[in-house]
């Protein structure tokens, strides 16, 4: 996500404002410390003009852990 952001020259702050989250959330997403909702993932993929699967990797373990 960080690379994609750099490619489109968007700062964390700008991306956060566009997808209606805080800059901290973007920071957590880039550090793989937070799993976004499907809605947020879609919004980010639209802004970065990339498929969701290319930005986020789904891991079964995370799903089990959260539930």
């Amino acid at each position, binding site marked *: 996500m960080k690379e994609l952001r750099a490619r489109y020259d968007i700062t964390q702050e700008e991306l956060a*404002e566009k997808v*209606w*989250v*805080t800059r*901290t*959330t973007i920071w*957590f997403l880039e550090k793989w410390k*937070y799993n*976004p*909702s499907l*809605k*947020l993932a879609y919004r980010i993929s639209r802004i970065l003009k990339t498929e969701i699967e290319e930005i986020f990797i789904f891991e079964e373990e995370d799903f089990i852990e959260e539930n």
Partner: protein
Amino acid sequence: MIWKKEWFTLKKQWWRLTPKTWQWYAYLIIVISIIFLSANVIQNNLIKITKILNSCWNNSCDLIIQSNIVKITIFGVILSVLIIDIISIWENIKKDEREYKIDAISERNASWFMSFMLFLALFFNIFTPYFNYEKSINFFIIFLLLWWAFVKYISFYILERKWE
């Protein structure tokens, strides 16, 4: 509603709104001033009515009381509208989804702790009289516990139906 969504940025934690434009500051100053003014007018008129009721018994006094009641009603309506408007800001401004989760989990933990403390209080309330040779159950604690359970299951029922 008086306020506009564009005046704010995202809500961080439930009480914190980040103002984005000068309109928000203007709104805040005007609304708080009107709230204080309304509260002051209502209070003064209530004092006047009380004084008149204690000292005057003729028809002219009734007219004065009526005019005071009209003032209280007008300012009461203004006050209610502004308070509803302020509450609607908190309701309508979106929250960051991560902070929403954090907030929800914190609220849940606070609720668990609170209910645990209430059960503990009830436990002490039931068992300590045996040592003091007094028998009294605090029904207020039971009432609070029942309300806690009621709100929890009503919320559960509504959400279950909403997201089925």
